[in-house]
């Protein structure tokens, strides 16, 4: 849920220190309702689900609490999955709060929640002053606590290093048993891949990197699964990419390009801040290898298209590209980002409609029906 109205003369970061005087709550009222409408539209158009995510104190996405949006969607939709990808576990103390809220959404929606867990972005460790050098430890421990809270009859005592709770006994419990499906996004940290592979959760790449970086990341994830003694199921791999569809390739670029660049040049600056201890010494080299392929380093539109930073074009072009890319990645979930930056409501709806009508059937025919979603706005397949 990007903030599309940063003043033209503001050239600072969109994260952590972006002055909140720049936020207009009256415009915000329109935006929230518009973005929620777009998420609801996804169900009407036949998407299998939507994704929403959590970020704090920024203009990039005004969704500090995705659970609030998810609970609205739980009531305003009937069929599609609601993927919260995810809840930034180290920011919740105690993390049983996450177990409770996710269970509420799961129960209200009748079992449609996909539970995403994230470590939280680098900027969040500045915004919350949670110690980034403890981020991985807290994440792992909070995860264990939440899973235990969902699956072990309460009350019981949890005694960890960071969290100690005398009585763990959350009401409600999730409707999906033993617990909702779990997705975990990552930027290439080996620990995260191994964590996901070990538990047979789904791994989704974070977008805005060159396609080759995704290929390498998913190959590493598949290797991590093999080391656990099994072959990754395609449904364990989510491909998240900006998608825009118009009548022709030319009209697609003409309608979309400026909005994409607003996102890249105005809303991404500041996202890549990496607080101390946030990546382990073991994972850092792999994460850094992907760094130069981050979209903020892309010079021009040809680079955007050839690097698959966004899949943009006519329905034929988009279907062909996605068919090729999904096959290469072995992804079972396609998560389309259908709204980016300043892309207005009419174009977002037009693109969603064309995708649902002309691209989705081709992909379903090719790959079978699977769930997917998108942070911020609709788009799933």
């Amino acid at each position: 849920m990007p903030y599309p109205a940063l003043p033209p003369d503001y050239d600072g970061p969109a994260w952590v220190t972006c002055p909140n005087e720049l936020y207009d709550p009256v415009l915000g009222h329109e935006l929230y309702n518009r973005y929620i409408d777009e998420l609801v539209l996804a169900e009407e158009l036949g998407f299998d689900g939507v994704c929403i995510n959590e970020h704090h104190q920024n203009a990039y996405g005004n969704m500090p609490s995705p659970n609030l949006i998810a609970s609205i969607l739980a009531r305003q939709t009937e069929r599609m999955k609601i993927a919260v990808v995810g809840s930034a576990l180290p920011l919740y103390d105690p993390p049983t709060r996450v177990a409770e809220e996710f269970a509420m959404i799961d129960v209200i929606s009748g079992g449609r929640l996909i539970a995403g867990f994230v470590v939280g972005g680098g900027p969040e460790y500045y915004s919350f002053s949670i110690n980034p050098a403890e981020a991985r430890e807290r994440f792992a421990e909070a995860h264990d606590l939440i899973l235990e809270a969902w699956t072990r009859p309460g009350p019981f005592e949890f005694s960890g290093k960071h969290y100690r709770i005398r009585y763990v006994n959350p009401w409600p419990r999730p409707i999906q048993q033993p617990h909702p499906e779990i997705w975990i996004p990552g930027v290439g940290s080996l620990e995260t891949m191994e964590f996901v592979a070990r538990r047979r959760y789904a791994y989704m790449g974070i977008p805005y990197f060159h396609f080759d970086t995704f290929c390498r990341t998913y190959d590493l994830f598949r290797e991590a699964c093999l080391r656990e003694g099994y072959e990754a199921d395609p449904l364990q791999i989510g491909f998240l990419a900006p998608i825009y569809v118009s009548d022709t390739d030319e009209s697609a670029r003409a309608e979309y390009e400026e909005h994409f660049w607003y996102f890249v040049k105005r809303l991404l600056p500041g996202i890549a801040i990496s607080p101390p201890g946030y990546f382990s010494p073991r994972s850092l080299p792999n994460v850094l290898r992907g760094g130069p392929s981050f979209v903020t380093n892309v010079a021009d539109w040809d680079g955007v298209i050839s690097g698959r930073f966004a899949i943009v074009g006519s329905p034929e072009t988009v279907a062909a590209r996605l068919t090729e890319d999904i096959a290469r990645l072995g992804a079972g979930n396609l998560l389309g980002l259908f709204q980016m930056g300043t892309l207005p409501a009419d174009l977002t709806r037009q693109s969603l409609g064309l995708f649902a009508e002309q691209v989705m059937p081709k992909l379903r025919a090719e790959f079978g029906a699977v769930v997917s979603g998108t942070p911020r706005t609709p788009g799933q397949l």
Partner: protein
Amino acid sequence: MRAAVSRTDERLETPVGTIQLVRSGAGAPVVYLHSAGGETTNPPLEDLSADHAVYVPVFPGFGESEGLEQIDGMEDAVFHLLDVLDGLGLRSPAVIGLSLGGWMAAELATRAPERVGRLVLASPVGLRIEAAPVPDLFGRRPGELAEDLYADQSHPMAQMMHLLDDWVGDVTKMVDLPAGMLMPMVQSMAATAKLGWNPYLHNPKLPGRLRRITAPTLVVAGAADRFTPRAHAEAYAAGIAGARLAVIEGAGHMVPMERPEEFTAVVREFLAATGG
């Protein structure tokens, strides 16, 4: 300056893991607690090693030292330092700490006053002073940080930080950093974060505990320090009974590096006046 003696790079087993220990000279023992830069020597230490046994225990996470995963905060740091003193057989050495190391030295001296014979706090962090905030250390570009740490931007260390500016601070560009430079920097900052992320480079309890320090104490401040404004050194000096404050003209935060001769002179004078 006197002739420097050779240094040896040793290993010391401690309960948290094996740490790196740089030792030089012989004589009355001096333990140096390094800054967040992880320095294992500097010109004043080389000078002191002419007639002192100088020990530089590298803190877990810095340099070659292991055991950071066992350190969760200042309390663990102090217990670790006590283990180091025990491991070296030092009953109550002179302890000199710079910046982060100064904070650790002060914490050690409040909790185990009998283990610190003399105390030198150089540009110590560790206090929060409402009217004189310590600027951000984490998440700033090295060049920007150099402006706060050095009075003279042409100092070789400041120059190096300006050179690093193109790489560090943006994770998407750090891959270009010369091999072998990145990891030590990343690890030092992680170790510093363990101690000083929140509360930010201070211990709210420390001001009330300074009265427990019994060692003769010298607080050294750089007159042009933009990282820890003068009020910090003044608060330490005021809180520790009998402490002396020395302000060194022309020095920024990294006093021993920027004004080595003046720093050495005040430290030697202090050590001589308090027992050699």
